[in-house]
């Protein structure tokens, strides 16, 4: 009764969550192309897309991807043998437990005429599958604690998934162990299958079960007589043997049960039972919102991306796929491990530089959960540090087209008032700069020292400048305009002079600083070895620095 009630409640919550998620795949707007497509259209085109793909030669690709990338985890195998082993253990252990054990009424019993959960090979297999999951969980914990990329990126949902799996498995073993030794359980079964609860009548059977099946009775003394043994065997064969192999096949639970011997008289088995099914049903109810949702979304992502050509796919389907992909991320951090700019995180501690965190932040942002501007700016900075090298996309074991999401998120951010950070740094520098030639005369302000230590080029070297204007005259950007002073604000030699006067803000805000091609003609030709181009880099650095500080 309790079982059914909680099961149906969990199923109901699961379904609600599932529907909500599918709804979100049709609604979330990621990228410019997603802005104007109605959700109804996205849903119908998605359905049509799936049917078209399935009833076409593409079915072969789908089958191949399903076999190799979903069932055999080929992409994970390529990345790391240990990860592959871990996930194969968890995945296959859990799936087989689900099918053989949890769904025994619907799968095992109909399929196998000799199925009983307490008979071999099923008794052994249940332990084997559970042991596989536990082995996988141990590796998972070890990796999350040891691997630098995982230590850095692990969050509550990652631990929740691991802990839940551990609780389900360990409570399962605990349950079986306590049932093995439980005299109360024995009496329940005796009543049901031997048709009696009379202790004297059951004594031979009890003795047999105590000897061969590990049950711990408190009231069995002197039960070793041989006629008792033969009678017990006979009773066992009549009432129990069909459904019960000796428990030693439960190679985890049986040894474990020895540890519980002192508690055999209690109903600890009931406590384990409640823990076990509650853990399972909590997992089921919460599934659409936990990492476990990936069991649906990751195969979908892998298969969909295998047959979707971004050039020819409908915008509606590309939009829906992006939303689905965000739910397909396993937070495995393989992308972060190999990211071309990941190392920069050690210098600029912005988590969104790391692809796995950029995706998580993007997901929050798209769901409207990140109103604060600091977070938006952070995400934009991380997005712009990315060099679109394609490596994360190539390696992602969930087949997510990350590069596509990165481009789309930049569109979203620009749309929401967070354009490319070069533009933002340029704008904020321009806004902060007093206009040269304004009413107040340009004079040396009181002790204006540059903020922060000089880095690559001590600003003092602009002191060598003697205003020959060679830099301005070789600059191709200056040459491009009929009135360069007007367009660029300050010319290169004027910027050098500003630095000499301590007018760093003015120099930072000039258009020339931001329209520099970095072609180094100025620096190459300067007769005074003033590192003009490097100084312009320095000025840009300062504005970016101010921008970064705004984000933290």
């Amino acid at each position, binding site marked *: 009764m309790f079982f059914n009630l909680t099961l149906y409640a969990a199923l109901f919550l699961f379904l609600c969550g599932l529907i909500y998620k599918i709804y979100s795949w049709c609604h979330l707007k990621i990228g410019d192309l997603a802005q104007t497509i109605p959700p109804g259209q996205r849903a119908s085109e998605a359905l049509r897309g799936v049917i078209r793909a399935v009833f076409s030669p593409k079915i072969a690709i789908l089958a191949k991807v399903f076999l190799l990338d979903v069932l055999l985890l080929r992409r994970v195998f390529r990345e790391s043998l240990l990860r592959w082993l871990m996930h194969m253990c968890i995945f296959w252990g859990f799936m087989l437990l689900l099918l053989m054990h949890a769904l025994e009424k619907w799968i095992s019993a109909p399929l196998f005429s000799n199925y009983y959960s307490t008979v071999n090979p099923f008794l052994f297999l249940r332990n084997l599958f559970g042991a596989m999951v536990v082995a996988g969980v141990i590796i998972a914990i070890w990796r999350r604690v040891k691997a630098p990329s995982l230590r850095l990126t692990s969050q509550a949902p990652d631990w929740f998934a691991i802990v839940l799996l551990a609780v389900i498995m360990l409570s399962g073993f605990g349950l079986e162990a306590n049932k093995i030794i439980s005299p109360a359980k024995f009496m329940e079964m005796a009543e049901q299958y031997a048709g009696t609860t009379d202790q004297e009548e059951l004594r031979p059977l009890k003795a047999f079960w105590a000897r061969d099946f590990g049950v711990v009775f408190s009231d069995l003394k002197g039960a070793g007589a041989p006629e008792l043994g033969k009678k017990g065997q006979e009773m066992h064969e009549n009432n129990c043997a069909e459904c019960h192999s000796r428990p030693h096949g439960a190679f985890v639970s049986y040894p474990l049960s020895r540890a519980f011997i002192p508690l055999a008289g209690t109903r600890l088995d009931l406590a384990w039972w409640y823990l076990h099914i509650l853990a399972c049903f909590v997992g089921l109810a919460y599934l659409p919102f936990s990492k476990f949702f990936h069991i649906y979304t990751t195969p979908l992502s892998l298969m969909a991306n295998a047959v979707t050509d971004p050039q020819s796919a409908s915008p509606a389907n590309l939009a829906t796929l992006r939303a689905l992909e965000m739910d397909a991320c396993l937070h495995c951090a393989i992308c972060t491990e190999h990211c071309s700019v990941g190392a920069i995180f050690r210098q*600029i501690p912005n988590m969104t530089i790391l692809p796995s965190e950029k995706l998580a932040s993007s997901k929050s942002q798209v769901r409207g959960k990140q109103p604060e501007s600091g977070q938006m700016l952070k995400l934009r900075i991380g997005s712009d540090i990315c060099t679109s090298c394609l490596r994360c996309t190539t390696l992602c074991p969930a087949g997510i087209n990350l590069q596509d999401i990165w481009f789309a998120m930049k569109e979203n951010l620009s749309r929401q008032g967070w354009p490319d950070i070069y533009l933002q740094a340029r704008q904020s520098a321009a806004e902060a700069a007093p206009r040269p030639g304004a009413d107040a005369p340009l004079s040396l302000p009181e002790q204006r020292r540059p903020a922060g230590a000089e880095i690559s080029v001590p600003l003092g070297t602009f002191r060598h400048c003697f205003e020959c204007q060679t830099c301005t005259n070789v600059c191709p950007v200056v040459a491009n305009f009929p009135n360069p002073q007007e367009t660029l604000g300050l010319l290169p030699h004027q910027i050098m002079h500003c630095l000499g006067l301590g007018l760093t803000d003015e120099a930072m805000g000039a258009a020339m600083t931001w329209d520099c091609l*970095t072609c180094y003609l100025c620096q*190459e030709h300067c007769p005074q070895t003033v590192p003009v181009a490097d100084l312009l880099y320095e000025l840009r650095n300062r504005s970016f620095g101010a921008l970064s500080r705004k984000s933290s």
Partner: protein
Amino acid sequence: MKFALFLGCKIPYFLSHYGDATRLVLKELGVDLVEMEFGCCGYPVRNQDTKAFMLSAIRNLALAEKQGLDIFTPCQCCFGSLKKAAFLWREDAALREETSSRLAEEGLSYRGQVDIKHLLQVLHQDVGLEAIKQKIAKPFKDLKIAAHYGCHALRPSKVVGFDDPLAPTIFDQLVEATGATSLPWDLKLSCCGNPLWGKNDKLAADMTVNKIKDGKKAGAEFLCVGCTYCQIQFDTVQKEILAARPDTEALPSVLYVQLLGLSMGLSPEALGLQANLLDARGLASHLVAAQAGGPEAPVETQGAS
């Protein structure tokens, strides 16, 4: 000749045929390019943060040093960036110390032993013009090329040591080794405009159009480049610019490895010529064998129609 192959971030998604063509041609020339997983050279982040740039760049040098290899790169921005970082590593003790401690967090260290070489340098110095000429199976004839040296390889010369910054010759020599003519042209040493693409598109396009017009004025049929970004600018971006400025005449651009590879007898498909957005397939028609209808045909065909 063995190097660590440093492709840079832009090739895989934006110009994958450059990677393929480089591997193919260098293999034919007996250069062993070892594939390794590198990070970004630091060029893009240098606008933002010098220390981040240093860390990014020196990390690659540390990784190469661990394998006992020097770096080979087909991208001139990567070349310039890594050279700058190496220069600062030598000259700036404070930066060196800070970068070292960041690297140590990852268990890496750098002793300053790695040489950084660009594709054109390796071809000119390590392989040598003589060895290249010997590999030319089908030289070009009547092919006028405007060789574009690329800023980040040439300057600042104190840092990069690539060639004479005011009158460079190695690229011209490499082009002429294939039989093509490397034209003198005014804006030869000027920037392609790519560094401003995405920051100030109009200005970047102006730079590119200036280059194209000047190349055409000098009589060039193709631009030739030795840099990923320059090729993106003169090919992918030029296509966009031409669509927006229809009165501009196109000047297609080829990568040097495509030019060299063709004259070495490699197929246009293997060199990715079909991936060039501005049609460069006409390049093959300038090969001597293609022109005169056979490898035995005499080179001088003046007067014949």
